[in-house]
């Protein structure tokens, strides 16, 4: 329990740091948001009066630390402010797109696991054999291949040539599969190598020899005894990869024209829509911190030998 409280406290500190850095970076970015937004709306350089009026209305003339405190206070109460472009609540803009991004993230993680776990296991069991070499080369290609390029490749093959999926859009499984593969492949490559390494370590353990000496079938030894322990580091990496997935989603959402936080964030950055930028980054940070917390807490469940927060005897 004390460990959970400790982790929650550190999560709060991390989020405080994220809020500070995000706010600082956003406000240090070149370009006056008042001017940028008025230009975006009007197509012309606004008059200095119009800029001043906008700045006053949006509280940009307040001291920066006041603006920060106002924003954090609001955020703590669930109010992320309003978009500069309209009266839309930032939280509702985020909620509108969060589902699409999470859907893509979960699907791509599933794709990664479906590819990586069997491949990693096969690679470890058949170490040094053609299947291992092939999977390692595949993993290398997967890691090296930019996901947007893979996205275009998938579109050309499966949408244009085979006419199995639509090129762009959202809603329905048919719109999810190609983006999930494009985004999940990179992670699959990393996880494959991790599963392989982890399995190789576990397979060398004495308890695996014991299991074999008891006459258990190799399938039982691998899947029941070795895999469960080998997957513990995988859980960690998959949790950490959520950040990678959210990053990649920015590009993939553009390539497949899927609404999502990535598109929302990029548009907001170009338009200097600070409240939206800050809101999206904060939500992404919260998602990342919470997923890491859940990963840590899941250790104890996955491996009762691990006593979180207690010194090893």
């Amino acid at each position: 329990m004390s460990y959970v409280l400790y982790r929650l406290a550190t999560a709060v500190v991390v989020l405080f740091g994220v809020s500070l850095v995000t706010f600082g970076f956003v406000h240090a970015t070149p370009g006056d948001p008042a001017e940028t937004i008025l230009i975006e709306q009007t197509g012309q350089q606004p008059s200095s009066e119009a800029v001043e009026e906008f700045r006053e209305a949006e509280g940009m003339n307040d001291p920066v630390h006041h603006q920060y405190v106002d924003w954090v206070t609001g955020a703590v109460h669930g109010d992320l402010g309003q978009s500069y472009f309209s009266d839309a609540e930032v939280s509702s803009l985020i909620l509108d797109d969060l589902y699409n991004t999470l859907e893509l993230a979960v699907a791509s993680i599933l794709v990664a696991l479906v590819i990586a776990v069997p491949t990693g296991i096969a690679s470890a069991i058949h170490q040094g054999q053609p299947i291992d070499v092939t999977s390692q080369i595949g993993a290398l290609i997967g890691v090296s291949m930019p996901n947007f390029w893979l996205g275009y490749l998938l579109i050309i093959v499966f949408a244009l040539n085979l006419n199995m999926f639509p090129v762009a859009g959202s809603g329905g499984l048919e719109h999810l599969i190609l983006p999930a593969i494009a985004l999940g492949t990179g992670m699959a490559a990393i996880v494959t190598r991790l599963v392989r390494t982890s399995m190789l370590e576990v397979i060398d353990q004495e308890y695996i020899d014991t299991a074999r000496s008891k006459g258990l079938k190799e399938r039982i030894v691998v899947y029941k005894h070795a895999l469960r322990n080998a997957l513990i580091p995988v859980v960690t990496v998959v949790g950490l990869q959520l950040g990678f997935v959210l990053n990649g989603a920015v590009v993939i959402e553009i390539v497949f024209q899927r609404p999502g936080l990535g598109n929302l964030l990029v548009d907001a950055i170009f338009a200097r829509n600070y409240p939206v930028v800050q809101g999206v980054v904060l939500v992404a940070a919260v998602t990342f911190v919470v997923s890491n917390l859940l990963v840590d807490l899941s250790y104890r469940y996955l491996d009762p030998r691990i006593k979180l927060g207690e010194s090893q005897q």
Partner: protein
Amino acid sequence: MVDVSRRTLVKATAAGSVVSLAGCIGGAEEDEESLVIGLNADPTDEQWDDFGGVMGYFLDVTEPLVGASTEMETEPQLAESWEQLDETTWRFELRDVEFHNGEALTADDVVWTFRDVLDREAWTSDWLSLDADGMETPDDTTVVFENTEPMASFPGLINHDYFGIRNPNESGPDAGTGPFELSERGDGEVILEPFEDYRGDVPNAGVTFRYIQDPATRSLSLQNQEVDVIFNPPLNDVSELEESSETDIHTQLATSATLGAVNLYESPTDDETLRRALNYAVDQEEIVENIIDGVGVPARGPFSNAIPWVIHDDLPEYGPDHDRARELVEESDYGGEELVLMVDSAEDEHATIAEHLQSNFEDIGVTTSIRMVETGAFYDTFTDGEANLTIVAFGSNSVASDYLIRTMFHSQGSDNRQLYEAEGTGVYNPGSEIDEMIETGYHTFDEDERFEKYAEVQREIRQTGAVVPLFYNEDVLAYRSGVDGFEPHPIDKKYDWTAVTVGRLD
């Protein structure tokens, strides 16, 4: 509890996956009666929400009082006619038309719309020379506008989509009078249906505007027949789309031009001889042919030839003549300083053009560095005068393109005002003589005099090398074979889709 073995579970999952995938085969199905247009701008994003989600751009849901012909001349739209009562007063007579909800259009609706825009977008007051109390309604079908100063191009200015007339009692789908009415909107898509009681020709088909941000994805969506029409495919796809039997290309001279705006107040480009040398170094035809794949027209001046008062044919050609350019560099005060060429990082071709210019300038003995600036900060950096030469593209979204000449070359124009007010300089505004020409042209009601003043400005700008003209932009429309009947327009937002036939072959 049902006992399900792992093997059964795996089989069931696999079967489910196959069934799901089978459902995907064949791609998305489209309504055969609706034309689907892939846009490079989101018609549902926040900036389009100002008017209840039926912002006039592209959508033909609302209509302005004054229309724009394909020759870029004003023509009656919701106003049947208009006349100028004196230097600052205009009277507009309205047509007898109905909004989509069946209510009759009245003069009060027009005044409400203008006041709403003036309130939401305060800058428009300056632009139109119109205050919120500068309108009267002598009767239900007459509106009298009182400008704050003589404004000869007022009818053309209110052709802008901002001034699409809306019903004050409706904030959503029934707000307009246009040939299309709003059916659905959301997730980057707007679906329009023909307005069956439209006073003119009722559209043949509904239209769906779908935002597809990435140019490559737009092009692939067209090739996969998910959309029927796309604006601005990637340049390197244009010839392939043109040669394909399933797609076609239409190019249309746009109102915008791409140019190098030269900073007249920053050394060393404050030297006119050097600026002229830079102009002699540039080969516009080579840029059009080799960098933008022929999608554009080599420019001589700063404004597109689609604008009626542009005097492209009367403007001198500089070259290219690198020998003459080198002579001018020798004659100038240039001492080997590095010029800064600035480009918007979001404009792919602009970076390549900057590299091309850099190479040309190097050849005449002028060294340069290229500065890429992120889109959000680009215009601000430009108007701050932080570069010697900035590659920009400007055009007009209304039939009165006069505001372009003021925006770009008047000291109080929006491109120059910031530095002019702060330091008495500007960016590429040559000074008070040009300011006076622009003001005379802007306010005179004699069209010949106006055009002559604007011609003088263009000659002077060209002569002094305040810009390095590059090309007049062309809009590229790629469409599926079978789509027919659309009417192009120099302003891409004013394409007419009412007579289009979809001709979908399934």
